[in-house]
């Protein structure tokens, strides 16, 4: 079972924040097929949000084929987003931790690291896309 948290300063609306958290949990393997999502009532109460917002988020996930509702029982994960990449993640994470230590010793602040990762990722993905295009 996962627990939702809301970022009240985020511009992303509440239902989308719930959707994103479930997808995130599916991506990192925190939620697996068969797992139950928190009950609508419990989410509404603990976050003090409208139950319709929770329902809307769960419906969205259902439309995307990630979860399924069982009437009277609850909502369950039917598919994972981790896919084949999950086993590789542990190793990549180790590399990343080592890299982060190097970045710290080189004097980079967390903001510097985030900025570097974001710009590099954009550039690298753009390069990849260009290479794929037929000349």
């Amino acid at each position, binding site marked *: 079972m996962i627990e939702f948290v809301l970022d009240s300063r985020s511009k992303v609306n509440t239902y989308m924040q719930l959707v994103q958290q479930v997808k995130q949990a599916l991506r990192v393997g925190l939620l697996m097929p068969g797992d139950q999502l928190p009950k609508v009532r419990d989410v*509404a*109460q603990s*976050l*003090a949000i*409208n139950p*319709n917002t929770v329902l809307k988020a769960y419906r969205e996930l259902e439309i995307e084929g990630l979860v399924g509702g069982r009437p009277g029982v609850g909502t369950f994960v039917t598919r994972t987003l981790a896919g084949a990449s999950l086993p590789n993640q542990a190793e990549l994470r180790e590399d990343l931790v080592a890299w982060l230590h190097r970045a710290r010793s080189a004097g980079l602040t967390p903001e510097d690291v985030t900025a570097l990762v974001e710009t590099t990722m954009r550039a690298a993905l753009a390069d990849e896309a260009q290479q794929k295009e037929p000349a």
Partner: protein
Amino acid sequence: MDVVLEADQLGKRYGSTWALRDCSLHLPAGRVAALVGPNGAGKSTLLHMAVGLLRPDAGAVRVFGESPYNNTNTLADIGFVAQDTPLYRDFSAAELVTAGAKLNRRWDAALARNRLAQLGIPPNRPVGKLSGGQRAQVALALALAKRPRLLLLDEPVASLDPLARREFLQSLMGSVADAGTTVLLSSHLLADLERVCDYLIVLHAARVQLTGPVDEIAAGHRQLVGPRLDGTPPVGVAAVVRASHTDRQSTLLVRTDRPIDDPAWTVREVSVEDIILAYLADGDTMTSHTEWGVPA
């Protein structure tokens, strides 16, 4: 779509002043609606007419299809917590639960006791000696014990500290999820409402300024920034809610009827809070300029 509460040209006058006028709106079943407006906008007047405590001077209000002023049967389906949670202060919470059973046709005493026990409310202390947050919870528990189909709350969190406010809204959302109760709550604390409410009624200067589902309202308004506007706003603008101008730039909050795709204008989404404030501010300046006899 089932309509729980419906007002048609509803009006209420105190002396020669209209507290509410030409109020037409409907509240669909299963919604949690926010009734928003500054003090004196007519929020309490509307709620008091919806619960049959006041008789309309114009138009009609119907709850579950009946006029609540003439039809006391309807009252069994309505839960109402008035402003400042008036309770018999010398009674304890346990005594109030017992009293409620004698005063109501339908009464779920077990529900009230369970709720109050879960919240750690002392059963035998006079409610006048409880904290404001605890008193609000007692009033909510009593209103819910009626198992109402419509729950009306007048400024339920205004006098509570942030923690008590959050706990109150948690209880409220939990019970809405349990029972599917339709809720209409008035408030001027906009930040809380955006998460809790999915329907909005904005009252200002005795009139309804805006009403509808929150997501439709959010999708139907945009902020535009562009060159100083003279003449007509860009295509897609249904109405300009609020505008401010410098010598070369205009900032508009607009209601849209289709996507705005004009390269001269920067289009931004606006929060529901900003939309509400735009509607409230609009009427304000207009009246005060006329009343003070100065040009707008």
